[in-house]
C-alpha cells in the first residue's frame, strides 16, 4: 500500500499505486510489472570508463561474460554550414583546459517529449525525463559516459561559441536556478554576451533548451579533469557531467560521440543538421608501457601465461605487441588510469580472477618475539590494573565542545576544527577528563549515579603532529559501593582517586615513592583537595576532587574525584641484564611495632612526617604508616594530631630495650624537626 514514488518506481504520489485488474493475487510484484531489472554498480574513482553502460559491458566481455557489440558510427551528412563556429581561447599555460571542442548546429527540431523507451530507461535509473534534447544528453552520459551539452541556438549571441577561462567578476545563472560568481580558475563556454555554461559542470539558464527550442547547438568537448573538479568543488556543484569529466572522459570519442548524438537528435526531434565544427585537436593520450610478463607472478602471486596475458589486455582494448623479452602495451583511450606496468599487472590478475590468487602463508620466524614497545606494554598493564580495581574502560571522542575545552586549559583557536561535525565536537580535547565527566552526567541521567570510568588515549597540547600525550585518566563519582546491609555506603573522596593513580603507576612499573607530591594541581581540581606527582619539574600525574565550579559548568553533581597520568612522563624502565629478581632478605627475628603521636600545625604534610620517620633509621625501619588523624578542640586551633606506627625489623639479633628506645628517640627527633610540633603525651 504505497505510492509509486514511495516504491521508488515513479513520480506518482497521488495515492496508493493500483495494479491492473487482471494482476494475479499473491504473485511477486516484480513478475507482475514489466520492469527492467536495475543493477546498481559502485564504480571506483579510477574507472571513468565504467561510468557508462558500454564500459561496464566491455569489462564484463573481457572477463568472458557475453560479447561486446560493436558500436556502429554512421557519420551524419551536414545539410548546411553551421552558422555558429567554435573557438578555443586559452593562455599557453591553460591550453589543456579544453584541447578539443566539437560542435554542430541543428534547425527545424521539435523538442517535445521523448519516446517511451527513452523515458523508461531514464526513469529506471532514477532520472526524470524532461524534454527530448535534455533526455538525449542524459542518455549519452549514462550509456556511453559521454556528457553533452545542448544550447538553444536562438539564444546564442554572436556567431562564435568559445571555450575560455572565466574572467573575475563574471557570473552565470545556471540550470539549477542558482547564480554563481566565476573566477579565472574556471573554464566557461561563452558567446558574445558572456558565459553560457560552466565547462563540464553545468549549463546556463539563458541558453538552455526549452519546448520552444527549434534551433540547437550541440557541444561535445574534452575538459581537463583537475580544472573541472576544482570548479565543481569551489562552486559546490555536483552534476553527472562533472562526475565524469573530473574522472576523465574518453579523449578519442568526441567526433564519434557527436555523430551518434546527432543521429539520435535527428531521429527523435527531426529537423536537419549542419556540418561539424571543430576547434583544437585530440589530446595525445597514447602511451606505451613495457610489461615484463614475469612481474605478474612476482607481484600478483599467480602465474598467468604470456598468451593469456596478451588476450586479457587485448580484450580490454589495449594494443599489445612483443617487445624484447616482454610486451609493449598501449592502453585504449578510455583507460587513462592505466599508466604503468603495475596497472597492467592489476588488469591481468583482475580479469584472470582474484579467486585464483593463492593464499600463501607469510614466511615467518620459527619463534615469535614480543613486539610491543615499552609504552604499549605500559598502557596495557595500566589498563588491566585499573579495570581490576573496578574502573570501567571507555573510549570517548578526541574532540569536545570548545566551552568544555576552556574549562580544562584548552580551547585555543588553533585547536578548533574548521569543519566540525557539530558545534558539540568542534575542538580537540586538552584533557580526557571533561569527556569522562560528561559521561558521568549522562549515566546519572540514566539512573546510574555511582560511576567509575577510565580511558587511555590522547590529549592534545598543540596543533602540530606529535603534540599529543597518551594519558590514563580515571574518575569516580557517587558512592564507592552501593548500600549494603553490612557496610555503610561511603562517598568517594580524593584518596580513592589517589589510590587508583598509585596503583596505575605501580602497574606501569614505576615506584610511586620516587615522585614528589605537590599541591599545585591544575585549575579544574579542588584547590585544597588535589595534588600533583612530579619528577623534577615535570608533572607526571595529577589527582584530586574536581572543582565544584567545573562540575557545575558541566551540569554534573559532585563530588567527582579523578586522576590523570601522563604515561610518557613516567621514567623509562631500566633494561635489566637478567630477569632474576633481587635476592629476598627474610629475617629470623620478629618485627616489632611502635606507635607515636604528634601534635603539629595542620599545614604540615603527612608525607613529610612519614619520610622523616622512615629516614630516622634506614636499616631498621621497614614501614611507617598513619593510623590516626585528629583535628579539633583538644589539640588547639590550626593544629592536628597525627599518630604513626613504625615497624622495626632487626636482621641480626633481637633488639634490646635500650636499642628500641634509642631508635624511638631518633624517630621523635626527626619528626619534631620537620614538623615543628610536639610529642603528644
Amino acid at each position, binding site marked *: 500500500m504505497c505510492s509509486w514514488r514511495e516504491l521508488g518506481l515513479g513520480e506518482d504520489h497521488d495515492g496508493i499505486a493500483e495494479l491492473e485488474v487482471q494482476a494475479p493475487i499473491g504473485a511477486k510484484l516484480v513478475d507482475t510489472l514489466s520492469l527492467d531489472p536495475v543493477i546498481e554498480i559502485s564504480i571506483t574513482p579510477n574507472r571513468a570508463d565504467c561510468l557508462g553502460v558500454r564500459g561496464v559491458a566491455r569489462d564484463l566481455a573481457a572477463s568472458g561474460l557475453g560479447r561486446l557489440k560493436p558500436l556502429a558510427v554512421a557519420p551524419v551528412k551536414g545539410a548546411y554550414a553551421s552558422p555558429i563556429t567554435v573557438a578555443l581561447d586559452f593562455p599557453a599555460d591553460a591550453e589543456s583546459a579544453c584541447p578539443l571542442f566539437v560542435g554542430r548546429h541543428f534547425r527545424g527540431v521539435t523538442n517535445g517529449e521523448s519516446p517511451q523507451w527513452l523515458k523508461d530507461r531514464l526513469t529506471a535509473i532514477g532520472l526524470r525525463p524532461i524534454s527530448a534534447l535534455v533526455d538525449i544528453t542524459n542518455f549519452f552520459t549514462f550509456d556511453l559516459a559521454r556528457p553533452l551539452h545542448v544550447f538553444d541556438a536562438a539564444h546564442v549571441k554572436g556567431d562564435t561559441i568559445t571555450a575560455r577561462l572565466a574572467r573575475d567578476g563574471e557570473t552565470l545563472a545556471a540550470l539549477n536556478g542558482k547564480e554563481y560568481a566565476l573566477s579565472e580558475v574556471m573554464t566557461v563556454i561563452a558567446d558574445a554576451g558572456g558565459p553560457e555554461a560552466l565547462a563540464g559542470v553545468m549549463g546556463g539558464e539563458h541558453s538552455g533548451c526549452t519546448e520552444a527550442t527549434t534551433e540547437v547547438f550541440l557541444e561535445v568537448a574534452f575538459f581537463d579533469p583537475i580544472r573541472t573538479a576544482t570548479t565543481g568543488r569551489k562552486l559546490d556543484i555536483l552534476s553527472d557531467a562533472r562526475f565524469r569529466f573530473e574522472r576523465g572522459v574518453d579523449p578519442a570519442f568526441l567526433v564519434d560521440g557527436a555523430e551518434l548524438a546527432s543521429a539520435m537528435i535527428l531521429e527523435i526531434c527531426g529537423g536537419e543538421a549542419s556540418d561539424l565544427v571543430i576547434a583544437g585537436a585530440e589530446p595525445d593520450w597514447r602511451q606505451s608501457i613495457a610489461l615484463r610478463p614475469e612481474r605478474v607472478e612476482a607481484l*600478483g602471486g599467480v602465474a598467468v601465461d604470456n598468451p593469456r596475458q596478451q588476450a586479457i589486455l587485448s580484450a580490454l582494448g589495449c594494443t599489445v605487441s612483443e617487445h624484447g623479452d616482454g610486451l609493449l602495451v598501449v592502453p585504449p583511450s578510455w583507460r587513462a588510469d592505466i599508466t*604503468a606496468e603495475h596497472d597492467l599487472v592489476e588488469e591481468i590478475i583482475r580479469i584472470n580472477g582474484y*579467486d585464483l590468487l593463492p593464499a600463501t602463508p607469510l614466511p615467518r620466524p620459527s619463534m615469535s618475539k614480543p613486539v610491543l614497545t615499552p609504552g604499549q606494554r605500559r598502557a596495557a598493564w595500566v589498563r588491566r590494573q585499573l579495570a581490576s580495581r573496578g574502573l570501567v574502560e571507555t573510549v570517548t571522542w578526541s574532540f569536545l565542545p570548545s566551552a568544555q575545552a576552556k574549562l580544562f586549559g584548552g580551547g585555543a583557536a588553533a585547536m578548533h*576544527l574548521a569543519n566540525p561535525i557539530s558545534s558539540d565536537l568542534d575542538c580537540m580535547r586538552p584533557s580526557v577528563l571533561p569527556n569522562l565527566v560528561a559521561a558521568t552526567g549522562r549515566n546519572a541521567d540514566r539512573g546510574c549515579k555511582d560511576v567509575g570510568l577510565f580511558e587511555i588515549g590522547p590529549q592534545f597540547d598543540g596543533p602540530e603532529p606529535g603534540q599529543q600525550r597518551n594519558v590514563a585518566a580515571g574518575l569516580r563519582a557517587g558512592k564507592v559501593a552501593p548500600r549494603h546491609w553490612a557496610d555503610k555506603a561511603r562517598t568517594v573522596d580524593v584518596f580513592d582517586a589517589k589510590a587508583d593513580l598509585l596503583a596505575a603507576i605501580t602497574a606501569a612499573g614505576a615506584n610511586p615513592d620516587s615522585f614528589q607530591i605537590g599541591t599545585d594541581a591544575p585549575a579544574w581540581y579542588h584547590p585544597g583537595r588535589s595534588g600533583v606527582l612530579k619528577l623534577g619539574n615535570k608533572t607526571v600525574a595529577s589527582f584530586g576532587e574536581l572543582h565544584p565550579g567545573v562540575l557545575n559548568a558541566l551540569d554534573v553533581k559532585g563530588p567527582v574525584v579523578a586522576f590523570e597520568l601522563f604515561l610518557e612522563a613516567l621514567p623509562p624502565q631500566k633494561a635489566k641484564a637478567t630477569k632474576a629478581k633481587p635476592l629476598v632478605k627474610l629475617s629470623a627475628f620478629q618485627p616489632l611495632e611502635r606507635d607515636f603521636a604528634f601534635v603539629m600545625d595542620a599545614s604540615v604534610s603527612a608525607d613529610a612526617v612519614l619520610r622523616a620517620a622512615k629516614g630516622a633509621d634506614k636499616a631498621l625501619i621497614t614501614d611507617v604508616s598513619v593510623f590516626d588523624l585528629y583535628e579539633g578542640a583538644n589539640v588547639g586551633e590550626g593544629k592536628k594530631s597525627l599518630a604513626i606506627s613504625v615497624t622495626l625489623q632487626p636482621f641480626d639479633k633481637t633488639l634490646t630495650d635500650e636499642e628500641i628506645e634509642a631508635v624511638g628517640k631518633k624517630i621523635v627527633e626527626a619528626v619534631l624537626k620537620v614538623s615543628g610540633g610536639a610529642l603528644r603525651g
Partner: protein
Amino acid sequence: MDELESIRAEALASVAAADTIEALESARVAALGKKGSISALMGSLGKMDPEARKAAGAAMNAVKDEVAEAINAAKISLEAKALDQRLAREKLDVTLPVRPDTLAGRVHPISQVMEEMAAIFAQMGFDVAEGPDIEDDFHNFTALNIPAEHPARQMHDTFYFGERDDGSRHLLRTHTSPVQIRTMLGKKPPIRIIAPGRTYRCDSDMTHTPMFHQIEGLVIDKTTNMGHLKGCLLEFVTTFFEVDEVPVRFRPSFFPFTEPSAEVDIGCSREGGELKIGKGASWLEIGGSGMVHPNVLKACGLDPDEWQGFAFGMGVERMAMLKYGIPDLRTFFDSDMRWLKHYGFVPLDVPTLAGGLTR
C-alpha cells in the same frame, strides 16, 4: 576401705551429676581440691605403717586417677555442649547477599580486540607502530598517492584545522595509513607492522561515527606478493574469529595507495537471521587491501624495482561487532555503564594464542 569406696562413689556421682562447667568444678574441688575428700583421705596415709601405706596408697591413687579421668571426660563433653549451644545462638542467614564487588571493572571491546589482533600479528612477526592523530597533508594524502585534486580525496570526509601561515592545513588522519609512511621513512625494510589507532571522518549516521578505529598492516620486502596478502588475511581471520574455516574472498577495488587493490570479504551464513562467521552462503566485507603502490614506495625513498609488499586496513569496531555480536557502532562511544559492563571484558581475560583469545 569402705570409706574409700564411698568417697569414690560420691565423687563419681557428683561428677556425673554436674551439668555445667561450674558444677563440675565444684565436684572437682570437693573430691580433688586441697580440702577435698580424696585429698583428705590421702593425708591419712602418713599415719600408717609402711606396709599398710603401700597397699592403701595404691588403692587411693587408683581412685584419684579414676575420678580425675571422669572429671576430664565430663569437662570435654560439657565444653562440647557449651560450644554447640553458642554456635546455635550464632546462627546467621547465609542467604544474605555478600558485600558488593567493587572490583568488577571492564576492558572496552575496542582495546580487547586490538590486543587480540596484536597477539595474532605478533605471531606472524608484525611490530605494532603508532603515529599522531593530527596529521599533515603529506603523510595523510600526498605520500599515499592522493594528490590535491584527486577524486579519491572525495572518498575521505576529512576534518581540517584552520589555515596555517604557509597556507597549508593540518587534518585529523582519515586512516592509519600515515603510520605506514612514517614507518617507511623512519627505517629500512624489511618491514612488518600493524598500526592500530583512532581515525576520523566527517561523517555521522547509523553506521558512521566521526571517530573510529582502524588497524592497518604493512609488509615491505623483496618477495612478498598478493598471494601472501591473501594468506596472511586468511590466517588472521581464522585465528581471530576462532572458527575452523573462514573463507576469504578478494574483490577488485581501487585505493590510490595500492595497486592491485582488493576489497576483502569473509564467508558467513545468515541462516535463521543469525550471523555466523565461517563457511556459508554469504559474504561480509571486512576491509581493503592491496600491493603497495610504487608511488607510495617512491614517496618514502624506496625503489619500487627493489622493494614491494602489501598493505591492508580493517575497522576495529566492525571486527568487534562481527565477533562479539555487538549491534550498533554508535554505542561504542556512549560511555553507558550498562553497555560497558555488558560488552566489556573482565581484566583477567588477557588474549593469548596459547590460552585462546576468548574465554
